[in-house]
């Protein structure tokens, strides 16, 4: 369809004056071991190889850090990755100052470490630079204060905490923020970020489609810029959405475990498996990506709670996309086999909770079935709802953000509308609660 309007558009572009391409920039990606962390950072095609920073590196015209956000590649109990950009794109110094403690003043951040940086392509000829600082060997369940930047140009001091050690502290409770599909609805996104921040989550699970087109850097600026008050304090884990289009700006700006597409991690009593259901090669869904999912499910057999996060809903009542028959065929048998407690998806812009399901049979309780939630209400235009579908326990065409609380006895998902009202107050079926 877009091809039809191409001929009318030549000469109508108003791109402005992008900076000239840097001949020294090579976009073939690369890999570097992160000292002291036991893992590596790999950049993809569209980005250059990452390089370790030096405190005497080049400072650009305005090295003020911006778009600070957290992620992790290693064990969230003992590691964190701070990511940021600077106002200029030239500054090549990436430094983090930190110390154990809550809301410490900058002068008490006595430990320092160098990070790394790399550049990546987005739209046009523009080249952007991403900074990362990796902290490893941290204490589980501890609170740290930190700031990032370069000497003389550090960010405000932010605070984060590592994941709890459930062996030492078995009664621990974790709270995840769960949200997806912000694309092009950044006012709502900002509103929901504020709502999540008020609930002080440990981690944000994002079900994909942060932006309309993953190649457009301006949109990423909006996405991260509006959420900085939350994301500079709380790490975010992404599932790849179809609108991210496997683009270099996506993989460059989000530090994630493994290959950034299919991975798993433990956080408190929950094991979260993340899968990419929109790979560049769609056959991978039934092949390599399914195998990766099975491997992760196998590794997490003993987890108290098992959650799968991906983008396109296996079960949905929305009028736009609806249930994915393809994923029902290839992923649902595996989900049933490993008795996954809860599956989180987005793609359909609404809030939905399924009945407990095993294959296509509705179960009497969620003790024997998996519940599929759709949490795609982070700002993209809302979709309508098909009523009375057998799999649906609750569906509402509304913007929303959810919290997923987990203790060793309880797993509970509750969604909130932008005004702060709980959707479960309308209908208790909208709340997922599972106890052990």
């Amino acid at each position, binding site marked *: *369809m877009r091809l039809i309007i191409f001929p009318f558009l*030549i000469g109508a*572009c108003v791109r402005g004056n992008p900076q000239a391409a840097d001949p020294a920039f090579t976009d073939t990606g690369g890999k570097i071991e992160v000292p002291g962390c036991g893992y590596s950072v790999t950049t993809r095609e569209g980005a250059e190889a990452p390089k370790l920073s030096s405190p005497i590196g080049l400072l650009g015209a305005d090295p003020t850090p911006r778009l600070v956000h957290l992620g992790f590649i290693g064990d969230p109990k003992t590691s964190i990755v701070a990511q940021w950009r600077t106002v200029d794109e030239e500054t090549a110094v990436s430094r983090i100052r930190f110390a154990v403690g809550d809301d410490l003043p900058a002068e008490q951040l006595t430990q320092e470490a160098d990070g790394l940086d790399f550049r990546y392509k987005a739209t046009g000829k523009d080249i952007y630079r991403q900074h990362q600082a990796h902290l490893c060997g941290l204490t589980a369940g501890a609170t740290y204060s930190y700031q990032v930047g370069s000497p003389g140009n550090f960010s405000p001091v932010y605070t984060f905490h590592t994941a709890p050690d459930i062996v030492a502290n078995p009664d621990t409770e974790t709270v995840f923020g769960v949200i997806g599909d912000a694309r092009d609805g950044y*006012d709502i996104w900002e509103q929901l970020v504020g709502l999540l921040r008020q609930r002080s989550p440990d981690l944000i699970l994002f079900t994909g489609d942060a932006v*309309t087109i993953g190649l457009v850097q301006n949109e990423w600026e909006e996405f991260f810029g509006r959420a900085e008050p939350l994301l500079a304090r709380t790490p975010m884990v992404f599932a790849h959405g179809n609108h991210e289009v496997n683009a270099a700006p996506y993989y460059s700006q989000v530090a994630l475990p493994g290959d950034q597409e299919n991975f798993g991690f433990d956080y408190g009593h929950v094991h979260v498996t993340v899968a990419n259901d929109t790979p560049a090669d769609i056959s991978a869904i039934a092949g390599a990506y399914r195998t990766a999912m099975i491997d992760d499910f196998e590794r997490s057999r003993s987890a108290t709670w098992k959650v799968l996060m991906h983008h396109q809903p296996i079960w949905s009542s929305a009028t736009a996309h609806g249930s994915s028959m393809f994923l029902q065929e290839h992923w649902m048998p595996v989900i049933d086999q490993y008795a996954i407690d809860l599956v989180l998806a987005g793609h359909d812009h609404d809030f939905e909770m399924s009945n407990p399901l095993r294959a296509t049979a509705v179960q009497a309780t969620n003790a024997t079935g998996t519940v599929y939630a759709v949490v795609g209400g982070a700002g993209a235009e809302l979709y309508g709802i098909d009523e009375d579908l057998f799999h649906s326990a609750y569906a509402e065409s509304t913007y929303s953000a959810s919290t997923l609380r987990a203790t060793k006895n*309880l797993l509970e998902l509750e969604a909130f509308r932008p005004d702060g009202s709980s959707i479960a107050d309308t209908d208790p079926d909208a709340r997922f*609660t599972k106890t052990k």
Partner: protein
Amino acid sequence: MIRFVLALWLLGSRVAVADDYQAASKLAGDPATVPAAIVAFEAIGDARPTTRWTDNAWSEAGRLAERIGELERARHAYEQVLALTDDAVLRQRARATLARLGGARWDAVRREHVGWVAESMRGDPRAALTALEKLATEQPDYPDRANLWLAIARGWELDGDGERALELLRAAIAKTTGRDQAQLGFAFARIATRGGELDAATAVLDQLAAAPDADRAAIANLREHVETAARRAWIRRGMWFAVAILGGLAAFVLRRETGSWRTTARRLIRPPSEAVFLIPVAGVMVAVAMTGNPVVARALLLILGAGVIVAWISGALFEAHRVRHGQIGARRASAQAVLVIGAIGSVTYLAIDRDRLLDLVEETVEHGPSAD
């Protein structure tokens, strides 16, 4: 012996508390037994000596009390968490919740805030937005006042009254400081940019930039948006001018070729072969487009609609020329084709200069099509 008995008693009481905690958790899982769960958790929290479940029990009691709307009880529970726990995360969460709940004096205001915002999203928003304005004016010290003003402004903008949104935000910015002011100022700049009030957006950004702790990066980003909007506004005006000129030129030439306005009208009523050919093609294309991205479909509808009109007028011009002069020369045909392309190009730009479609098209031209 005494030590052994004491150890046995302690072990027994811990097992009992663990069982109580699990039983309370079960009660919390059922909406009907949430009040009983709160009582059970409070009992565990109150029991002395404290155990490792004490702080968690108060946290659970607070969470459940908030859920059923007993805010004072929730506040008390979270205060107990702060008093008893050394778990930094639990403390942080309790502090955040207490900040969200605010003092008891704001409970009624908060309920009204949430209630009217919910109302503004359901039906006709005007009454709800007016009530919210009244609430914001009467409660200038309300801790969540920035979000209240933002909800009002966004509501009016969505209702098509961007001017009122800007007017209210301007007044709210003048009354606030610090982060609240920045948040409201950024919202003002965004709404003003969307509404074409670019000078107003720039003025507010200048005002925010003068603050010592200004978020320079965010301001620079918003200035870029304003510059892009200004550039596109100029192009848009140029395109409208071109459409007007070409339309006028077509009317003038048609009048000259036909000799009177009456004949011009008659000529235009009869569809030329170009239009007869294009209308079904356009219909099929629009029907197909409707099954895909609605933003692209709307633009295509506009473009093809305008294309049919242009083809109709162009066909009428050719027909009138042929009737009057017997044949159409190559120069005449070429000149008209160029003008038709100009008209279609202008209309196409105007059609895609909305819903961020221009950005989408730019990226598609540069990088190829993406997924829906």
